[in-house]
């Protein structure tokens, strides 16, 4: 938490933003951790707690509640009515959303769906990890929630030009949900949230600065203000080349930025330009290095990244997106060990 406050802790903190269930099981097998049986209602959470303690992490990331209801023919539906097909690889592929026009938003209320039950997993993990252990919840940002409701990002991007009123109405509904989630997260004892929604591709942002200021920024400011009022830090997550939006993200008041995708953002440059105003979280390449590299290469990249990003504080070591089934467990463990080896601050 000191790193997020812009202070220099005693060493570079290590927190992995997302470890999916297959990867969690791979890691547990590699580390020979006992795996809870299916009769345990919080099996995944129990395993995640064991993993962060075993590896000596400095915080834990908690997934947002996602209830995907099976509706047959390999299809699932989320609590807001978006329908997904399970891909050949088990991912949920968005097929359709419940909102086609402004009329569909009349009486459409997302915030009432938030209940204390959504934070049961948080309370369970708090009990496992103790009152002082930093806990961060991953929350999907209004931009992404909006395109899920529209049945695809392409639809929302066309709306940016053709249906401004609909874009604002979607942002309003989804932001109200986020405000309720922030309140619930604070009540459940969380320390920070990651607000997640990609706003850039590898070459450029998905939309212009003008559209960012019109459709995105005002709603992010509301969420930031609500989080600050409840003592929660906010890390913004977007893959891609986010350079053109960095000043905006800092002006909004986000404490951290994740993941500084190494294919399109040089962390040394980001540190030089923004390091005094923003904590950087991530950057260890999970696309090639952690999948296909050797443990020695991982060690070298972590050493170089820590040397570029950590001086003076304000860096949290993490992968460049998530730990997915393509990542070699040995490489992830090498990343953590290298972080511990090179991350000590001398003063």
């Amino acid at each position: 938490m000191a790193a997020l406050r812009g202070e220099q802790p005693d060493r570079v903190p290590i927190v992995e933003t997302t470890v999916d269930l297959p990867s969690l099981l791979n890691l547990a097998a590699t580390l020979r951790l006992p795996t809870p049986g299916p009769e345990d209602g919080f099996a995944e959470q129990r395993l995640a707690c064991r993993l962060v303690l075993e590896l000596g992490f400095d915080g834990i990331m908690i997934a947002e509640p996602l209830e995907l209801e099976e509706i047959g023919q390999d299809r699932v539906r989320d609590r807001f009515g978006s329908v997904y097909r399970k891909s050949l690889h088990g991912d949920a592929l968005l097929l359709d959303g419940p909102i086609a026009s402004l009329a569909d938003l009349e009486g459409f209320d997302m915030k009432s769906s938030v209940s204390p039950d959504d934070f049961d997993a948080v309370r369970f993990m708090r009990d496992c990890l103790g009152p002082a252990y930093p806990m961060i919840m991953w929350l999907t940002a209004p931009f992404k929630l909006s395109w899920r409701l529209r049945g695809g990002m392409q639809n929302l991007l066309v709306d940016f030009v053709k249906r401004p009123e609909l874009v604002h109405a979607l942002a309003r509904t989804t932001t109200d949900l986020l405000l309720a989630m922030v309140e619930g997260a604070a009540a459940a004892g969380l320390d920070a949230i990651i607000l997640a929604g990609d706003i850039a591709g590898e070459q450029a942002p998905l939309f212009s600065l003008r559209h960012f200021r019109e459709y995105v920024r005002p709603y992010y400011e509301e969420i930031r203000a609500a989080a600050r009022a409840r003592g929660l830090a906010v890390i913004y997550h977007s893959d891609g080349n986010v350079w053109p939006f960095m000043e905006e993200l800092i002006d909004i008041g986000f404490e951290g930025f994740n993941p500084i995708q190494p294919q399109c953002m040089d962390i040394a440059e980001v540190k030089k330009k923004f390091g005094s105003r923003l904590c950087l979280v991530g950057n260890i390449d999970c696309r090639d290095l952690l999948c296909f590299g050797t443990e020695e290469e991982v060690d070298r990249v972590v050493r170089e990244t820590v040397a570029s990003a950590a001086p003076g504080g304000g860096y949290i070591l993490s992968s460049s997106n998530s730990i997915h089934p393509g990542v070699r467990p040995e490489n992830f463990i090498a990343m953590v060990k290298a972080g511990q080896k090179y991350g000590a601050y001398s003063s």
Partner: protein
Amino acid sequence: MTDANRLTLMASAVEAGDDETVVLLVREALAHGMPAARILNEGLVAGMESIGESFGAGDVFLPEILVSAEALNAGVAVLEPHLLADGIAAKGRVVIGTVAGDVHSIGKNLVALLLRGNGFEVHDLGVDVSEAEFVAAVRDNAADILALSSLLSATTSQFAAVVDGLERAGLRARVGVLVGGAPVTPVLALDQGADGYAEDCVAAVAAAARLMAAREET
């Protein structure tokens, strides 16, 4: 209004993503006896090329190019029966999709829209498409070009799997394989057995045209 003025306005309307004006101007141009091929190339495609350049230069973004591509297609839909009546065949038959394991669609959709807008017959199989589905679609549609998209580095190996599938089905020689997506480089395209690579949707149209020209030479 002169023909030249009408074509200039049409190109501007495509650039602005104003599909209603595009449709109106295409109908007017047809009513004034302008050949469908000229309307397509000097009006609609000219407008799309112009916004494509702005996109490549980073001056406009996905929302603007998406609405332009929609406007282009609205115009093409009006033109299609006239192109057919004039005996102008499609520039080539394309099967397109995002490979198995990847669900990203926007880049692939833009390529499909632009190919269609540039006179290709396009069969879009969607996302997370298996090797077998690609092979079957190439066979069933007698495709000239197979365009494969992958935004994930982990799924670019699917390019080679699909190429192998085409080999096994005895279809490889009669179809040109074009690949694209964020992690794709010319070297990776070669390694995966593709015939061509495009870095963005505008380049994809040029690459498809080159593949067709190469096929006609052989």
